[in-house]
């Protein structure tokens, strides 16, 4: 490499020495095409000669001794497009003027993987940039969500509308099976945590720790989409890297300090709810049955409307908090119904206030900011989020030394409500409640059979007089007022940076970063809670600590005007520590005093910690030829503590990329193609195994059956048994390799920009828990066992439709498509990623990652009828479905793939229209395809409460029902007539609670729905008052006013709460909806006063 470089340099030097006899002079002015202002310092060169000059303060230049004849003259100036013109030079003076155009895209500066500034046009990889302004504009208080729809290939799925809820971010596609598929987050060159600990199908929606950052403190976000861009981050970079640059101060005039005060208030509303029926009451078989879990009861409108018949005898009576006696309703006459989908919600409120001070001079800058976000969620109570952040950055420049410090403190306090598959979950109890059951009061004093009064019982539709200790499912009003889930996070993250230039070609930088937080959580389930009738408390403290050091030396050299290069050498040390300590306690003694572990009879303490260390040396070689060709080669050699004794714990990750700015070749006409670049890259990155998987531990753990009941050897004198998971001393790194090609093309004076990327990613030796035959003594072993591939296309288009002083109109769009294939699973048929046995988001060989695997209809082509079945009256109906002897479809015994949550493609379309001080901005987010399992609907179909289930039909002929009953001609029934292929049958309640018609009793397949959507993610109007008159009169720089609509429009066929939801939060599995807490839309009003 080096030798070639030197040879090329030599050739160039020699060729420059040619002389000509006849010469002339070229002179002229270089001005800005738009403003006409002179451009001093522009470089003007006669192509093919060493003749050149720079423009003076008036923008004038003069080049003497130019050979006569036709010459090409090229002008280059930082911040502007280069321009070339041909001119005929004679022996005199010829005038040649240039007007250079500048565009917004021009010479954009981006941040490289190592945190240094770099020209975007010189990059050989695709890198998406989202400005901090665009993130705050979104109206999202959470950074990840603020990136939605703004960068091609960056896929974000929110988990729920709970305040501070985590979002799933996956770039391009999944690269690993059971490991983390989220990118590495790096703030100001230092890796930080984005943990989301404790996600499950039940419980509460957790936060993502990256959302501890105040979006107002972010200058820009760069997304390195895959290993070809992120290889320098080694074994943490397989899923890409998100580089966040925080704001710092800028030089101000004199002693001026810039002050900004920003206030935003927003109203959050329930975005979409599930349709529930209000036509039929509690019960079964068309009759009212108190306490019944089904809503297949009588028709409510057919009731008399008189007083209910109530039994107030002992054992059936209760007192409400106001002292009135009530009893069991034995005959329902009331026609009143309740809106169980909405009664637990109200409009949420958010207040976001921040103040920042900044300023500086050439010697140094500073910025300080403080912000507070207070949010009350849409759930009536105990759903809130309060985040206070302090951010400070300062830098000081000395002669050849720059010192910088950045520090951020965050304090988050949040209450959360149980969701999902959880008898204490909010919507599970709410949606299942029969429409005619009043959930108020939710706490009653029960009159027992012997006449004694039991205070404060939990009343619910399955426990209508509070007679039982358990409500069956929690009354949602009880849940939001009694169950507590609180989290308090205190976090400090920051770094110091010293940059030293001993000579003009060498820079040495040292960066030391720290990120540490503690998350103190408690969860209280008071006595009479459905999941913990005896009361329960979990207290825990989760803490993580990360220390990172980078020592980087960068040497640059310019060989001549056409060739230059640099060499960077770095040494990285990273130390991470995780600690989770706490106790679960159950069976409370004194029921009102529920936050003391010692007040519980059963206590189950837990403790878990891990330390992972990584160390690496890396190097980058950059080479630039003719300001057109940019080559970069990187290498990282890394060791980590997570590997076993039988493997070499040191791995090497190479990458290389090349960018060719072909439009600088003289054959291209600037007037059409103002800029063109082709790029190609390759990179490798890895994934480390989880800590401590190389040896087999012995532990003292509860030996539980699949149903939760079990025994712990600790209670029998103490016993340590061998783990079910075999250690694997041969574990090695999982490797992701990526090829990427692409181009950036700008037309018509940069008014139109098109960026295209095509990539291929391959992961080999993916680390996952491989199932072992339990009879061998182990049921699982962590191994390098799987492989998968991603390939896709990304496109970005920016159009400056109108460019003028007063009126500007920009359009921008992104489009991406990714196809993922699981290519090997070590012989396993299916690996579940998240979900339920009836519907699991899974990895399955030769299918896309995350496909929904679950119970399906039986189809004759796959599971043919046996002769015994044929003689028992089974037939094959429409769509190849097997029908039972009564003509109803049956479920297959074996599970199959019933859906694919991966979208066909995703797009974002936005526009900014700017007229004087008024700016209108909107962004549409589009997802085509991508299934969602609507488990909520499947369950509600069982209970008879779903809004679809108001069918009323009069039989035109005798009809068979599921199970073999008959509905006589002329009878009106709740249900509908359908022909599955063996003649018309009556689909009635038995089809849903006993037959295959619901998600509980039948296949999950019919509840998989298309989750495609078009969403107006934001629409925003900004008005800025900053005229000179205003500034002079007030002394302020500006006042900015804004109105933002967030998530205000959603077009989707999906019938659940939101197609963009995920039961298990930012987990690998996705596309699952099962009584998730709903999402929100907001209207936000903001004012910012800038001094």
């Amino acid at each position, binding site marked *: 490499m*080096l030798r070639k470089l*030197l040879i090329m340099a030599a050739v160039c030097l020699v060729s420059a020495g040619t002389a000509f006899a006849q010469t002339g002079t070229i002179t002229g002015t270089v001005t800005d095409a738009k403003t006409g202002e002179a451009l001093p310092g522009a470089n003007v060169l006669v192509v093919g000669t060493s003749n050149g000059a720079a423009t003076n303060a008036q923008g004038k230049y003069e080049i003497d001794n130019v050979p006569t004849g036709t010459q090409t003259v090229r002008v280059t100036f930082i911040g502007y497009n280069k321009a070339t013109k041909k001119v005929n030079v004679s022996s005199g003076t010829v005038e040649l003027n240039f007007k250079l155009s500048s565009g917004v895209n021009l010479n954009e500066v981006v941040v490289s993987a190592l945190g240094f500034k770099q020209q975007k046009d010189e990059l050989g990889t695709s890198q998406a940039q989202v400005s901090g302004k665009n993130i705050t504009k979104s109206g999202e208080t959470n950074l990840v969500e603020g990136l939605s729809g703004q960068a091609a290939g960056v896929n974000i799925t929110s988990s729920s509308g709970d305040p501070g809820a985590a979002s799933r971010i996956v770039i391009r596609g999944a690269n690993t099976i059971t490991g983390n598929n989220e990118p590495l987050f790096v703030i100001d060159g230092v890796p930080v945590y984005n943990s989301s600990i404790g996600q499950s199908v039940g419980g509460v929606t957790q936060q993502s720790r990256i959302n501890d950052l105040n979006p107002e403190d972010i200058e820009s976000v760069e997304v390195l989409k895959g290993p070809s861009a992120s290889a320098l981050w080694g074994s943490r970079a397989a899923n890409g890297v998100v580089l966040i640059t925080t704001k710092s101060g800028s030089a101000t005039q004199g002693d001026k300090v810039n002050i900004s005060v920003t206030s935003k208030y927003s109203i959050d509303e329930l975005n979409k709810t599930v349709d529930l029926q209000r036509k039929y009451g509690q019960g079964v078989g068309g009759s009212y049955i108190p306490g019944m879990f089904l809503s297949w009861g009588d028709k409510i409108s057919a009731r008399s409307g008189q007083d209910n018949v109530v039994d107030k005898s002992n054992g059936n009576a209760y007192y409400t908090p106001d002292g009135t006696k009530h009893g069991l309703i034995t005959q329902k006459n009331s026609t009143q119904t309740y809106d169980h989908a909405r009664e637990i919600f109200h409009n949420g409120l958010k207040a976001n206030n921040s103040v920042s001070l900044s300023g500086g001079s050439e010697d140094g800058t500073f910025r300080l900011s403080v912000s507070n976000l207070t949010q009350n969620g849409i759930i009536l109570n105990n759903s809130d989020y309060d985040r206070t952040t302090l951010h400070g950055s300062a830098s000081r420049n000395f002669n050849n030394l720059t010192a910088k410090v950045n520090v951020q403190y965050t304090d988050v306090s949040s209450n959360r409500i149980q969701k999902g598959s959880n008898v204490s979950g909010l919507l599970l109890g709410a949606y299942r409640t029969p429409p005619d059951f009043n959930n108020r009061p939710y706490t009653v004093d029960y009159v027992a*059979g012997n006449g004694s009064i039991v205070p404060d019982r939990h009343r619910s539709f399955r426990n209508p007089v509070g007679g039982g200790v*358990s409500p069956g499912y929690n009354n949602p009003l009880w849940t939001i007022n009694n169950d507590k889930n609180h989290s308090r996070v205190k976090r400090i993250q920051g770094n110091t940076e010293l940059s030293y230039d001993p000579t003009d*070609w060498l820079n040495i930088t040292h960066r030391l970063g720290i990120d540490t937080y503690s998350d103190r959580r408690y969860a209280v389930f008071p006595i009479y809670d459905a999941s913990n009738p*005896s009361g329960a408390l979990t207290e825990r403290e989760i803490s993580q600590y990360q220390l990172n050091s980078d020592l980087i030396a960068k*040497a640059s*050299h310019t060989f001549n005007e056409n060739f230059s290069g640099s*060499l960077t*050498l770095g040494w990285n*040390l990273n130390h991470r520590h995780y600690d989770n300590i706490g106790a679960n306690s*159950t069976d409370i003694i004194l029921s009102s005093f529920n936050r003391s572990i010692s007040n519980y*009879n*059963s206590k*189950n303490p837990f403790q878990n*910690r*891990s330390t*992972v260390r990584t*160390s690496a*040396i890396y*190097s980058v070689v950059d080479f630039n030829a003719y300001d057109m060709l940019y080559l970069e080669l990187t*290498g990282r*050699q890394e060791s980590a*503590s997570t590997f*076993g004794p039988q493997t070499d*714990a040191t791995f090497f990750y190479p990458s290389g990329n090349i960018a060719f700015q072909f439009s600088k070749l003289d054959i291209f006409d600037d007037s059409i193609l103002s800029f063109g670049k082709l790029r190609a890259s390759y990179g490798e990155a890895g994934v480390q195994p989880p800590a*401590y998987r*190389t*040896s087999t*531990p*012995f532990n*003292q753990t509860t*030996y*539980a*059956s699949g*149903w*939760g*009941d*079990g*025994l*712990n*050897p600790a*209670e*029998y*004198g103490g*016993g*340590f*048994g*061998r*783990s079910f998971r*075999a250690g694997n001393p041969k574990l090695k790194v999982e490797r992701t390799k990526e090829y990427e090609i692409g181009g950036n093309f700008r037309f018509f004076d940069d008014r139109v920009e098109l960026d295209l990327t095509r990539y291929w990613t391959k992961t080999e030796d993916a680390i996952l828990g491989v*199932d072992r*035959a*339990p*009879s*061998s*003594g*182990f*049921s699982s072993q962590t191994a390098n066992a799987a492989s998968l591939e991603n390939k896709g296309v990304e496109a970005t288009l920016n159009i400056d439709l109108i460019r003028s002083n007063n009126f500007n109109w920009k359009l921008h769009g992104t489009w991406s498509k990714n196809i993922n294939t699981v290519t090997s699973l070590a012989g396993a048929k299916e690996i579940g990623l998240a979900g339920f*046995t009836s519907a699991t988001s899974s990895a399955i060989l030769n299918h896309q990652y995350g496909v929904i695997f679950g119970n399906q209809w039986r189809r004759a082509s796959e599971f043919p009828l046996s002769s015994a079945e044929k003689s028992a009256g089974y037939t094959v109906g429409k769509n190849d479905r097997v029908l039972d002897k009564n003509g109803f479809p049956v479920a297959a015994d074996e599970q199959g793939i019933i859906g694919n949550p991966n979208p066909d493609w995703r797009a974002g379309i936005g526009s900014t229209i700017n007229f004087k001080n008024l700016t209108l901005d909107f962004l549409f987010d589009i997802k085509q395809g991508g299934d969602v399992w609507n488990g909520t609907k499947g369950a509600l179909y069982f209970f008879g409460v779903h809004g679809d289930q108001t069918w009323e039909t009069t039989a035109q002929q005798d009809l068979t029902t599921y199970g073999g009953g008959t509905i006589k001609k002329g009878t009106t029934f709740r249900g509908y007539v359908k022909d599955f292929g063996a003649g018309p049958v009556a689909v009635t309640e038995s089809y849903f609670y006993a037959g295959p018609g619901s998600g509980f009793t039948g296949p999950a397949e019919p509840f998989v729905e298309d989750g495609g959507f078009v969403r107006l993610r934001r629409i925003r109007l900004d008005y800025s008052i900053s005229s000179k008159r205003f500034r002079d009169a007030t002394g302020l720089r500006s006042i900015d006013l804004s109105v933002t609509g967030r998530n205000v429009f959603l077009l989707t066929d999906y019938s659940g709460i939101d197609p963009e939801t995920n039961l298990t939060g930012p987990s690998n599995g996705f596309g699952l909806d099962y009584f998730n807490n709903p999402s929100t839309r907001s209207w936000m009003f903001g004012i910012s006063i800038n001094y």
Partner: protein
Amino acid sequence: MNFTKAKFLGIVLLLVGLVGCDSITTSFTDGYSENPNAPTDAPANKIFVAGQVGTMTFLESHSARKASMYAQYFSGEDRQYRSIFHYNVTGSDNDSGWFIAYVRGLTNLRLARAKYKERKVVPENQVAATKILEAMLMGQVTALFGDVPFTQAIKSDSTVTPKYDSQANVYKHVNQLLDEAISTLSNNSSSAISEDVTTLGGDPVKWMKVAYTLKARHLMHMGKYSEALTAAQNGIDATDGSGDMKMPHGSQQGRNQNLYYNFTQVERTGYLQANFSYADTMLAMGNNSKTDESARRAYYYSTSKSGDRVLNTTDGFAAETQAFPLVTYLENQLIIAEAEARNGNNQNAIDALNNTRDYLDIKFAPATDNYQDLTLLDFQAGGAYANTTILQHVKNWTYLGLIGEIEGYNFVRRIDYDVDGLTPVQGSKFPQRFVYPQTERNTNPNVPDPAPGLFDPTPENK
């Protein structure tokens, strides 16, 4: 710029040098691979406790409940339990039971035994105890599943896919273990078994008698009634139940509570009840001139506030701290009664039955004589059991003697469900086994193919 070729080369060489030298990076990462949360080894006694708890968890949790549903001691009435009760089979339903048996139970018992044997002075009685427990565990595993891995099981160093031994061979092996243990214990009857988690308190003589009863149990499974009788005559002999091997329980939720209690009261309320329990019905109809079953019935069953028949979780079989029966005097005497009845020794059979009646009196109603002694006359006209044969009565009686235990399901299958009045929950066939678990089918090619279904008898029951 004074950036010379030499400098450039120097830097490149430095770079190459660093890359070539692992220790630059490994010196920082070495020494952090040890797991601070769990040790990588444990002493024999601690592993022995784990092995016992694993074994008892298998015998008392889902497998026992499922066996009890198939035997119609209890009924599955909600969700998946309703489905199991109605003979709907999924392989994955047996995953956790199989896992507990092999990974939690057998693995730790064998590891403990190996570690005991490594010692300079081998604690022989400890070794014997691991053998008895292994026999108890694997005897039930083979009874439920038929052919199962045994000789190659728990040998992950040499084979990750153990072969399946025939059921007859597994019985042969476990009884051999019992014989070895009996021989050891009879020679060391004065040294206690330490770390005994059961109600036997480490008494080697009691353990030896348990081993005899277990041997008798397995011989009965194989239809070897005379040999079983011989073994049982050396089996548990304390009428007051003090020789019964039981798993003791406490009130730590999810940690040492009775598992029937934990399941029905804490984990899955409503899943397992007794509205369709045949044993409950049979006990209700079981009173006659010599027998009052009300106390026994009340011990196992009660009526909930909502009127459902449920398990007695207050002060009976499924109460929070109630010890769970593993091997009992009652079972031993029932074996004797059946073997004698099958051999035509009716008086001996009646003597054994009367022993069980004494046992039940002591257990359920010590103050009253609910179970008066029977005579041959009771099986003749005018007697308490006039309408049945002695053998048939022994069958009915044994059925009622094993409520809630896996052994009850083994028993009804062995006698082709020949209990008076017992009919399938649905259809015309009774369940005959547990089907092989899905996890094992997915990972071990040695699983018998085609895999037998729920209604296919195990080899010894064919």
